């Protein structure tokens, strides 16, 4: 049964991209365990506003685990200690009375801090702009059932496509690699006949952009898949490597 707990929250505060950051610890009394983690931050912010202090800046939006906006390191894990969830789906019942909870922004060179827990993930958009699409314009496409796709293939593509672009994979990786993110999109489109036509060019373009933007190399530690809120599989990275190598051989 959910109870009321008293906690301490140790939050990374940083006034701006170039400012020196530091941890600040706040006490919160009587927090209901049924509250979500972000609702706990709301309570903290209400408390800070009441004291005429600057509330903690953080990204959040849908609060149902799909928009990919929320991005916090909680007790050393992207999206917190529970598995297969985003921060907004984390609930206070995962924490104990008297616990000190440490909250940090994404740790990645490619995601610079904007303020407090808010980071700039524009790099992910740039990778997508480099090739994360099928080059079709609106209109003039064939009937949706013109090309049958085996169910297992469609399901696999769907699993890869479930990536929400939150950045947890790169943030979790000790090398700061965006391989899982890139692999998810490359896989989804390489699996489907519609995307196969450009598969080689796509893999090369997206990998080149990833390297250019300062993401690290993949050493297959698997931290990305372990922390991924949508459980995107490491098998996608293997597929990306195959696509990438095949593309290089063709050159």
């Amino acid at each position, binding site marked *: 049964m959910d109870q009321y707990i008293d906690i301490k929250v140790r939050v990374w505060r940083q006034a701006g991209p170039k400012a020196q950051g530091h941890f600040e610890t706040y006490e919160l009394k009587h927090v209901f365990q*049924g509250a979500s983690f972000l609702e706990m931050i709301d309570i903290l912010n209400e408390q800070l506003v009441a004291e005429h202090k600057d509330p903690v800046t953080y990204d959040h939006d849908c609060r149902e685990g799909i928009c990919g906006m929320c991005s916090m390191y909680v007790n050393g894990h992207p999206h917190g200690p529970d598995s297969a969830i985003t921060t907004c789906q984390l609930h206070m019942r995962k924490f104990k009375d008297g616990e000190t909870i440490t909250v940090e922004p994404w740790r990645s060179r490619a995601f610079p801090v904007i303020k407090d827990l808010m980071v700039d993930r524009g790099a992910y958009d740039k990778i997508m702009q480099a090739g994360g699409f099928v080059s079709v314009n609106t209109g003039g496409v064939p009937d949706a*059932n013109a090309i049958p796709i085996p169910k297992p293939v469609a399901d696999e*593509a769907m699993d890869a496509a479930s990536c929400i672009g939150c950045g947890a994979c790169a943030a979790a990786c000790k090398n700061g690699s965006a391989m899982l993110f890139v692999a998810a999109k490359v896989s989804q489109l390489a699996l489907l006949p519609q995307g196969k036509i450009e598969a080689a060019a796509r893999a090369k373009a997206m990998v080149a952009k990833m390297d250019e933007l300062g993401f690290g190399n993949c050493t297959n530690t698997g931290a990305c898949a372990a922390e991924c809120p949508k459980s995107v599989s490491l098998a996608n990275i293997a597929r990306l490597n195959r696509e990438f190598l095949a593309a290089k051989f063709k050159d």
Partner: protein
Amino acid sequence: MAKKEDILNAAKKAAEVIKEKVEQVAEREEVKEAVEAVAAAAKKTGKAAVAAAEELIAPKAEAPKAEAKPAAKKETKIITPADAKIPAGPLELKWTNYKNHQKLVNPANKRRLDVIVIGTGLAGASAAASLAEMGFNVLNFCIQDSPRRAHSIAAQGGINAAKNYQNDGDSVYRLFYDTIKGGDYRAREANVYRLAEVSNNIIDQCVAQGVPFAREYGGLLDNRSFGGAQVSRTFYAKGQTGQQLLLGAYSALSRQIGKGKVKMYTRYEMLDIVLIADENGEKRARGIIARNLVTGRIERFFAHAVVVGSGGYGNTFFLSTNAMASNGSAAMQMYRHGAYFANPCYAQIHPTCIPKHGDFQSKLTLMSESLRNDGRIWVPKKLEDAKRLQAGEIKGRDIPEEDRDYYLERRYPAFGNLVPRDVASRAAKERCDKGYGVNNTGLAVFLDFSEAIQRLGKDVVAQKYGNLFQMYEKIVDENPYENPMMIFPAIHYTMGGIWVDYELQTSVKGLFCIGEANFSDHGANRLGASALMQGLADGYFVLPYTIQNYLSDQIGVPRMSTDLPEFAEAEKAVQDKINKLMAIQGKRSVDSIHKELGLVMWDFVGMGRTAEGLKEGIKKIDAIKKEFWTNVYIPGEANSLNNELEKALRLADFIEIGRLMAVDALHREESCGGHFREEYQTPEGEALRQDDKFSYVGCWKYTGEDSEPELIKEPLDYEFTERKTRNYKN
């Protein structure tokens, strides 16, 4: 023989003349009568028919003008089908005719025209991408850190299309009819038919983009059923259809950003629209004022036209299924510049959301309507069982089958658990009001899968709904495979919005509105899986055409400097408003006032509305407005990143929207779709429309900060469908 031929020719000629004459009066109400009379007359010889037609038509053409004058004093302004630019001709040819005759912009000129698109949801992203593909220069704005995060992403269940892949009798007409009926006969026929028509193109487009829709073992696309339809026409991608469709639109948008045809502005919020008068003195939308949410700087942007796809205003209620930052401010900016706000009171309350559990709560989570395919909704038959559930003494599974009241199946045998959302929500409220609620607050009903698990096996149920079950368990901490889910209605979608004509242009020239932000297509109630359909229809297949009819006249208009006085004035007004808010330095946080507004909205402008309650609600909203403008506290600086200021600016508009919803709800003395006035119901508690008085779109025109808005009506004449009482019973 020759004589016969002569008569035939004369008759043919007469028919042509008649057609011409009929077209002349086609926009008038009497047309039906005239056509019937003409048809009768046409049985005579050609000449007689012409004479009869002329006789019939000529005097009537003068009649309404003569009548209009004496009544002009107090008469409500009327929007005619001509004002709404609805094309003439039979329903199924309107859109084709429109496209055949509309003006286009040639490729060289497209390069010289700039279009601002606000929002990157399904409507905004698909419009921005499609316009850029055509060759226009697009400036696209969103408040999130990436265009991929707009709240369309959260749609779970699916998207409708009239493909009839299941061979269950679906057709464009049937999708049109279901949508009109589902909307309780409060939507425009021509728009809805067009929506049904392009629905099939959407599915084709999304598949071509690589959207991984669910498939059957044969490799073809799978469908599921949704509320308000007797066919399976909903395409889906697991429980993440909105996400996959949005990522499809986002990928098309990304491609255009990469090509430099779309300039993307993330973390920017529009704060005003800039209107500039043309040489005839007519004001046209020519740009926007936006705030860079990271730096706090106010910036100016010019374009030849502005398209707003900013979503709905459900967050007026504070607690809703909308994302935290979803807001109605863009709509209010359009409204203040003269765009009509249509049917603000039509808000959809979704029956299957996770019930509220505390004051700290920030949002309500939706459980997809698709769950009603296999889940059965019930409350206990016996009041004492309900009491024990409320006290936490027993669980749902402890109540034997014979003591369960499957009230939707009982009341609506034909549609059962798949009745439309408004009907399902009201039925839940009815049971809970009577004391049969099943959780500690008494505000919840059961959604039970035990029968489906028995019938299909747990694995099949898990495959279909697994991610939804997981979501439920994470939030509620209870296993829905073992104990029935608890659900309760919550604000989900707003059918009302900015009035647009057939071209999706608002009553302000050059200002367009698409997706949930506009009022069209769903009438008083939206069917499940139709929001995604409308957003993408507007963005991919309607606006990119219709906007050209406007832009073709604008090719001679050079790009304007943002140093023009109109831009400076608009920026100053925005800056003054921000300064005013920052200077209040009161005692209340923005959220605390927003929560107060939300409670008033839920209690007085919610699922069951009364004249008395609405009047009371308006008073309370006025008091909240005063409290906000005198006692809100915003920390920090205006010219830097400031979430509290962002929220305050949005709340200022929510308060106005809330009031407008209440005013509209008070004026609409009938029950229809999502708008339920308790005074207007049948003895069985079903919604009672007043077609003779309220068969119109209620459009509200802004008349100033402290004066009441003016009501303008767009009458809804059902030419192609017969208005019926919605019946989901048999």
